[in-house]
């Protein structure tokens, strides 16, 4: 009897071991769906530019539009404010945001969708053996790290307090999900953790990515340098910002000569970011199907800002056209009403110029600045180059030019937060239906509340 039991046990063992049980149970249940397990599956997910980069008309993207909503590039005429804008956005427009509800999807969920896609790629790659496809594997991993860090950074500009170099930045900020597993515990990280994580990931991606990529929706090493320059600038670490801006421009510093554009067109940048030599990384601001306050359809450019462009400045015609209610922006590098919010060489040139000025390198700063305006000024007229007698004058010149060059790119909000910390004391004012609203420097209005639908999931 016992002998037979042993025999049975032996046979049973044979059954179990002879076959690959894991393979049997891992078979894809539905052929129409793909369980992403190969490099090409994962690359296809990362290439889903409609979600990852916000290209097209899906309203998605990695850059929340609430930053631009609060910034001082535009105003809303009263009838648009009253009739076209939801109450929730009206509150945001006058810097009194309530717990975000309907807006959460487009400002919180969509950037986090980029994080989710990146996490799926990173998670999938960790199960792959990179030996036979080392290079592709590295590039894809670098891309996912970049997209995720970029989205985190963008979320921090809206939903986290401004980074202040002079403090410990221990404020509670935003969650940093690092796995697609929906059961993983999530916590809100501190501000310093957010920036450290973002920088670490980007530094890793430098080692993985090629200098440039054929398609600008795919991140390149140049894009990482550009983004790191921007992030260090945000953190008021100008030495690092300068170094990264330098590395970025070393790869390529070509600017688009606006003299080659037809300023009379409805959208002078109609060729789009892919064919714009300035664009390093192509992505868009999120949007709303209707009632997007920062869409050129509604937003009217602040008059003093418009008047600050000189008569020989090509941007005055290329960026704007007049309407019955005021000037309308038409200069998105996307060549449509969608706001381009990617990384371009003009921004990096301005970062470097600012860093030079702050280091007292007046001549270098002016060189960069004048290189930029040479490509922005009507070449049939004499160029009025910037002059400066000292670093302060140079910095003022750079900031003026920065204000004019980078409008509706989602950058002004971060600049306002940063410059006010440095004591620029800019007070924003808006008048709606005769009532004036004010956003004082360093006010709580510079940090949006975390959406109510999200907050319920945290202690």
């Amino acid at each position, binding site marked *: 009897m016992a002998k037979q039991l042993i025999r049975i046990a032996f046979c049973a063992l044979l059954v179990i071991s002879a*076959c690959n049980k894991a393979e049997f149970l891992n078979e894809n249940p*539905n052929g129409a769906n793909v369980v992403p397990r190969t490099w090409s599956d994962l690359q*296809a997910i990362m290439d889903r530019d409609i979600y990852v980069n916000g290209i097209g008309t899906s309203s998605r993207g990695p850059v929340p539009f609430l930053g631009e909503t609060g910034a001082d590039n535009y105003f809303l005429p009263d009838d648009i404010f009253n009739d076209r804008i939801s109450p929730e956005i009206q509150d945001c427009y006058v810097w009194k945001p309530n717990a975000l509800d309907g807006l959460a999807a487009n400002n919180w969920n969509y950037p986090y969708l980029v994080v989710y896609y990146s996490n799926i790629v990173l998670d999938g790659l960790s199960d792959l053996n990179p030996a036979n496809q080392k290079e592709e594997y590295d590039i894809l991993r670098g891309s996912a790290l970049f997209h995720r860090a970029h989205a985190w950074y963008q979320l921090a500009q809206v939903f986290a307090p401004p980074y202040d170099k002079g403090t410990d930045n221990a404020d509670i900020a935003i969650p940093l999900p690092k796995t*697609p597993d929906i059961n993983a515990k999530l916590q809100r990280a501190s501000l310093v953790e957010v920036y450290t994580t973002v920088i670490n990931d980007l530094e890793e991606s430098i080692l993985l990515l090629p200098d440039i990529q054929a398609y600008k929706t795919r991140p390149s090493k140049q894009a990482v340098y550009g983004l790191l320059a921007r992030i260090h600038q945000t953190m008021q670490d100008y030495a690092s910002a300068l170094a990264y801006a330098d590395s970025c421009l070393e790869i390529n510093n070509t600017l688009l000569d606006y003299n080659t554009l037809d300023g009379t067109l409805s959208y002078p940048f109609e060729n789009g970011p892919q064919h714009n030599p300035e664009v390093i990384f192509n992505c868009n601001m999120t949007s709303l199907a209707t009632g997007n306050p920062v869409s050129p359809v509604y937003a009217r450019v602040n008059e003093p800002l418009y008047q600050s462009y000189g008569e020989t400045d090509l941007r005055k015609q290329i960026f704007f056209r007049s309407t019955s209610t005021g000037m309308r922006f038409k200069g998105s590098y996307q060549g449509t009403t969608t706001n381009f919010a990617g990384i371009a060489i003009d921004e990096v040139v301005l970062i470097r110029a600012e860093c030079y000025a702050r280091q007292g390198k007046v001549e270098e700063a002016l060189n960069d600045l004048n290189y930029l305006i040479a490509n922005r000024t009507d070449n049939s007229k004499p160029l009025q180059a910037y002059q400066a007698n000292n670093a302060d004058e140079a910095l003022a010149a750079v900031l003026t030019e920065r204000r004019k060059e980078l409008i509706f790119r989602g950058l002004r909000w971060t600049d306002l937060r940063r410059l006010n910390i440095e004591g620029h004391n800019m007070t924003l004012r808006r008048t709606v239906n005769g009532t004036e609203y004010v956003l004082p420097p360093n006010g709580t209005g510079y940090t949006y509340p975390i959406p109510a639908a999200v907050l319920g999931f945290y202690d």
Partner: protein
Amino acid sequence: MSIFKNYCICLILLVAFLSSGMAQQEQLNGVVRDSISGSLLTGVTIRTDSYTTVTNEDGQFSIHYLSAHPLIINAVGYQSKEIKDVAPGQHLDILLVPEISVLEEVEVIHSGYQQLPRERATGSFNVIKSDLLNRSVSPDLLSRLENLSPGLLFNRGDAASTDRFLIRGRSTITAEAQPLIVVDNFPYDGDLNNLNPNTIEQVTILKDAAAASIWGARASNGVVVITTKKGSTLRPQVSFGANLSLQGRPDLFNVSMVSSADRVDWERKLYESGYYDAAKEPTTLLRRVSPLPEAVELMIANPDDLEILLDTLRHHDVRNDLQQYFYQQAVNQQYNLSISGRQQRLTYAISGGYDQNVATLVGQEFSRFNLRTNTAYQVSERLQAEASIAFTKSSDNQGNNPGIGLGGSTGLSPYARLVDGFGDPLPYYQDYRKGFVDTAGNGEFLDWRYRPLEEIRLRRAENQLIDYVIQTGVSYRIAMGLSGQFKYQYQYQLQSIDDLHREGSYYARNQVNIFTQVDPVTGAAEYPVPMGGIMNLSRESVDGHQGRLQLNYAKEWAQKHRINSLVGYEIRSLLTEGNQFMYYGYTDAYTAVNGSMDFLSYYPRNTSTSSTRLNNPQQRRRLTDHFLSWYANVSYTYDGRYLATASVRKDEANLFGVAANQKGTPLWSAGIAWHVDKEPFYNVDWLSLLRLRLTYGVNGNISRRGSAYTIAQFRSGGGQSHSFPTADVISPPNESLRWERTKVWNAGVDFSLRNQRLSGTIEWYRKAATDLLAEVPTDPTRGVTSVFSNAANMVGEGLDVQLNSINFRGAFGWQTAFIYSYNTTKVTKYLMPLADRGIGYAEKSATVMPVIGNPVYGIYSYEWAGLDPQNGSPRIILNGEISDDYNALVNAPLDAFSYNGPVQPVHFGAIRNTFTWKAWELSCNISFKAGYYFRSHSMINGGLIAGWTGHGDYQYRWQQAGDEVKTHVPAVIYPANVNRDRVYQYSSVLVQRADHVRLEDINLSYRLSQADGTRLPFQSIRVFLYLSNMGLIWAANTKNIDPYFNNQPMDAKHISIGLNIDF
């Protein structure tokens, strides 16, 4: 698949190992059979002085035999027997004589893994034997189970759209709720209509955890175990059965329709108010094309005899045309022949069946051919091999006959004339306007008229099913009480649908005409869609392998202890593949011209201003199910009085992947039973049987809604900014997914009065379903706002009662069988917030819209406050006040609605009386259902305008002040207000109680048998008359609506005659 093969090879090897190397032992073998029927007896105790054994499911036993002591054979329901002077090594064939006092034969329960007598079970089982199954004559098995067993609910009428068939209520939200169907030991993955009810020996229903948990992850909804007939008698049994059923045309007047006169007058009113002005002199293509009702066309044409023509329409009812020409009397024929028997070591059963049905809808036919053989061969004392093959081929044909559904999106004009005075087809203009059809294409188009009657034969949609199931198995007696068995089943089912629209059919002509390009200069025509027929084909195959290795062990000792156990390992692989495509230019010579067609270009359509590609549907599907399971079951009996059972099973599946499987816990059950009547102290004379049972356990259920893996779906056409492939993530990975689980308590009492005057079973149960897969809101930070997760709960509670009484015995006999079930279920946990607008719950805008505290399917309605005496508009109570603010009502949250009750019955059952007199037997079944609701139909104002028909309530509409006391049908207004219609449609005034009692069927039979001394050329003959669908006896609703046919054509009574002969 190769993995599966590996497994099978391993299993076969294992069996080979087991059977080759077993030591031979001296012992006595034999078989025990019923002395009358010759059938093999399972569970018979055989005792010597020192050893005890029981017969296995094939009646076999083997026992150590050492001395000259007698063998003592005992079985419940049989006289015990002693056999002396047995020579060792002899093969015994023991016949047991049934105890005369026990009229009821011993019920044997088939769980799909084992067979055991009822008194050794603690769980909730119901057995339906073949004689009861064959009391009714429907061609499918499932409908024959209706009204025979408590706890089984067949939903009919509106409720059928929720769950067709349930055991003890629904205990899941999104997963499959239909019970698992097992045929001869393995789950059946084909179409249930493949089964021929006449080849079925018995059906066992497994209802509670102790009964079903051996099926583990698929047990939650209960299990229906079907056992086919096996050979058992020494004498070959040949039987033949045939029956013929007739059913009249359905009553179309049960579908309420506005009268033709009212409709004509209404259309005139619309015409006069300018609704059709734009169509008078159409300026756009859309206006020229869009069809109009016939009366309106007449009004526009305005001939001199307009009033006469309209009057003709007023007096015509299209339902007469339909009933006469589109419906017919149904004729069903059924034939069966079976042969079974036992010869030496071989048992065999061969049966064939043929069904031929002509449906009430003209052009619809069904035929089915079944063949099944079951054989078993006793290879040696220890080894038995068995094999069975079942083959089914069925074919279901339909013509182009929508019946009462004719009329497309606008509905059928009540005055439409489909047939002229000579019975010839008339055209009906439902897609395009008559004027457009008559003139379009300048003669280059094919005839564009649609003649419904002629079209019936111009389409042939043939749905053919071929199914074969091959099962083989060996069982081997390893040692005393220990046996091993290996079973393997292969099933292949191919379903092919050939939907042919013949050349000349309206469907094909329409496709050609839509795209025909006529050159405006030369007048020459080009045909992007070729002439000829159009054939839509779809194929779906199911390819299933299942293997099982099982060890059984039974032991009885010290005359009081008895243990029965089994342990097994199972593998299952199921591959479902399907594809679909279309042939253009199809002719009966099997030609097609797809190759010369251009499916890429956009062609302008003649019926609209858009251009489209030619329709070229092609689709492929592939689903794979893999399961690995192990299971064990043990029961212990002490002295026949106390019984304890336990069962455990663990399933692993590819649905969840390896990681999630590892976290899963086994599903299990335990039960106890106490045979009170067998206690020494028991002396209640009048109550001869009293048994108490209690079980608890956890059953599982499968849902495909969640995924343990990340699921992506490739998008066509590359990215927005590049042309690389792109993929969407459609579902995040959720490694903590697990089986849905249902915890079931079951308490039962079985009793029988002396002489079985009254016997029965009463059971109470409570099902707590947890870990139900449902949508759950999730932190949007994770990238998704909701996921399917094991997060919902439900509870169900109920009562199953089965009572049998023998009211009269003797020449005149009268027996009554009564079944009653009570079942309530409710959702107790569901995490998604309620939808913003309550009307979604009334309209059922999603498949499931759970509300905590209510069943998954419920009826919600606005609280009716009567018609407005001023204008006859519907009014509703909103926030305690009477309101006619329809926008506010439509946007109101669920609080503004009242919950009327469930869509499925809470109380249901049946009572069957059987009278016998000499060779006559008369039985009739009356069923009842109660505690549920349905929504009656009424007039929709907007539909009257946009559609061509309307509900008959039109004639009861409010027309003047004071009508509000007589009617609840609102005044008709023009233009209509969509929300006013919706508020009325979903108000409580239209909600009806569905409670009713109906006469299900009557069976009258006459039986002659040689055993009774009649001289017959064969053993026995039974002829019968069977009447079913006999209609309502009582209904609770005030409108005299049969809830089974709520505004649907009413099925006519069904009459069958038939005979069965045993040779």
